[in-house]
């Protein structure tokens, strides 16, 4: 075990993948000479050179599409998109090609690409750099959506993603990059089909992923002080959802609050809530609660941004509304 940051863990993962497999290369805007917009790929350009740490023009559609083509051509591209908002410029390629080619070719063209992007708010980057659209992507069959939330997952999810024969979108919450945590040195590839219970509890299941995991864990601690024993489920993968873990947890606690930095309407939290009612309706002792971002484009002003995002207080209130009082 050693203490490291999420950013360094991700960088270690990239370096290891580049060292282990010649087919792996990283491409994206300013991943090379600049070291990555968020510094994730700092130093890799020097070690692996401009062919494998490939700076691209600001052409999200072309370089994501090129990643898809390269994957079809036998490579294992890792494509970095600066933020999830920019990925919309490449949405055609992600949706109409990466997610779809295997199926419309009758199983001939699998696309082993990993697309990494920053997601989420919390850094006053306003309405075109701060959204959480991973839930949107989770709507699309053919994609795997993963959301590392811990240092270990940042370090060890990438390899599993690269081993996947199909496209994987990896969402890194911007607020997590500087987060420090204990890194398990030889954990090895993470099973991306499985959610993780980050805290066991008996009274309520707090279901979340990615950037809101620390918030939820903090809320769980606060609840513990009030005599409420919360279980925290880190989804890790938004598609495919680990129904077994979600439903299993709710079946134990009989109450659920889904915490999702995405907007509430038509969100992954809505999907999870629906699955809970479909799967364990008769285990529910309260309606499923949700804590989501306010339905506004993310504002710049600090206090407004904070007000728009899921918070410990918001989670505590949602738990209280379930009829749970310590």
């Amino acid at each position, binding site marked *: 075990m050693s203490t490291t940051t999420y950013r360094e863990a991700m960088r270690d993962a990239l370096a290891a993948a580049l060292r282990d497999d010649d087919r792996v290369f990283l491409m994206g805007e300013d991943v090379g000479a600049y070291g990555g917009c968020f510094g994730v790929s700092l130093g890799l350009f020097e070690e692996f050179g401009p062919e494998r740490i490939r700076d691209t023009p600001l052409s999200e559609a072309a370089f994501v599409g090129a990643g898809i083509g390269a994957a079809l051509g036998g490579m294992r591209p890792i494509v970095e998109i600066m933020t999830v908002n920019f990925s919309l410029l490449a949405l055609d390629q992600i949706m109409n090609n990466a997610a779809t080619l295997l199926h419309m070719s009758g199983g001939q063209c699998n696309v082993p690409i990993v697309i990494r992007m920053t997601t989420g708010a919390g850094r006053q980057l306003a309405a075109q750099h701060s959204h959480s659209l991973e839930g949107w992507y989770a709507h699309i069959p053919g994609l795997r959506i993963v959301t590392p939330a811990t240092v270990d997952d940042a370090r060890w999810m990438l390899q599993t993603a690269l081993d996947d024969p199909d496209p994987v979108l990896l969402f890194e919450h911007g607020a997590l990059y500087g987060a420090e945590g204990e890194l398990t040195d030889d954990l090895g590839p993470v099973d991306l089909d499985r959610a993780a219970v980050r805290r066991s509890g008996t009274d309520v299941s707090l279901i979340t992923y990615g950037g809101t995991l620390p918030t939820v864990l903090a809320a769980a601690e606060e609840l513990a002080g009030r005599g409420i024993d919360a279980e925290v489920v880190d989804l890790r993968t938004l598609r495919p959802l680990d129904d077994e873990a979600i439903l299993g947890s709710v079946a134990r606690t*009989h109450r659920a609050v889904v915490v999702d930095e995405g907007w509430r309407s038509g969100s992954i939290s809505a999907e999870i809530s629906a699955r809970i009612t479909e799967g364990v*309706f*008769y*285990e*529910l*002792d*309260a309606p499923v609660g949700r804590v989501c971002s306010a339905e506004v484009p993310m504002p710049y002003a600090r206090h407004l941004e904070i007000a728009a995002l899921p918070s410990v207080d918001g989670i505590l209130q949602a738990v209280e509304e379930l*009829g749970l009082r310590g």
Partner: protein
Amino acid sequence: MGEFCMPSLGADMDEGTLLEWLVAPGDPVRRGDIVAVIDTEKSDIEVEVFEDGVIGELLVEVGTTVPVGTPLARIEGATDAGRRSAPTSPPVPAPQPVAPAEGPPRGVATTARTAGRVLSPIVRHLADERHVDLHHLAGTGPGGVITRRDVEGAPRSGPGGVAAPLEHRPTRATPADGRTRSSPYARRLAAEREVSLTAVVGSGPGGAVLAADVPAAAPVDRDAGMRDAIARAMARSKRDIPHYYLQTTVDLGVALDWLRTRNEACPVVERVLPAVLLLKATASAAAEHPALNGWWEDGHRPSSDVHLGVAIALRGGGLVAPGIDGADQMSLTELMTALRDLTGRARAGRVRQREWTGPTITVTNLGDLGVDAVWGVIRPPQLAMVGFGAVHDEVLAVDGAPAVRPVVVASLAADHRTSDGIEGAALLSRIAALLQDPDALDRPHPHPTGGATP
């Protein structure tokens, strides 16, 4: 081939839980045999079969709660003729939304009736809001289903057709449709623990019952479930039945002297309570006054048989009023035996279906509690309730001189739709007269006596 269906055992029963099968496939049954025990909100009830035949497949497992009309078992070899020849089946006191003049025998659900019970949430809501009695509403939807328009066009059952103000909703979150607001988990736990949710006070939002509110075991719940059942039945009675009231004071001097002598002469187990005299007198009088004996089921259905309901207070609260069939035909000893048996079973929660649904008139006797008189609330679909207060001494003019006599105040609450005061008065007078001739009263087939009227 016939079906044995979940019977409706009262106007307020929508579903029942099968507690016990008393027969097995292959058992021959005759009409009237008790074949199963059903749990309702009020009581465990032994239910009978209405056909001759052989029990075929059992369709519902013990412990299952099903809506009224759901087939519970098949009956092989049952004939239509057998089904028709059930004239002594009492009419169905259960709701008949689509009002056939000649309803099917009780327990045999028809499609229309089943369909009529399918009520959409909006229909329930509207009916509740507008005080429309869905039980008496014919549905125009497919299969007789009651539609929103049916409710909107229906007369309100509140006084003067004006919607009564919404009743205060109690903490116990039971809307008018009888469905309790609860979490799904609580609902499931309640089913597993055989707890009636209507009896549970919820701690959740809007009084919703949460899992923690569901007690570990059932016993306390029946009372509250019964309270609700009584509440519904009595509210319906006061809503639907135009009551009128009469009272008279009956001299019991002769009857009690007679009884004292009789009881002294016989073993303690054969002693007869004074109440039995009152019951017998009421039953005999009722037989002669069909305007007050029978049911209101889509119109007046007088009965020539007397199935005498007896209000029995339960320990710990609650009230049931099962009946004694043919009470007018019994000797006092027989009636006493029947009353003792019925009281014991009622208090043990084991009343038979027929006793539950059969009564044609009911007696309530609050004499033990020392009240002078009782003004009863008629139990739908019956037509009258006879009440007795405490036997007490009064100074009466006897043969032109004051005399202290034991008396009882007999009262009558009757349905003005089927009788007028003159008939009610005749019934009370007849009761009083019969009580002046205990010997005649004790005969299994009493004849009219010309006894004095107080």
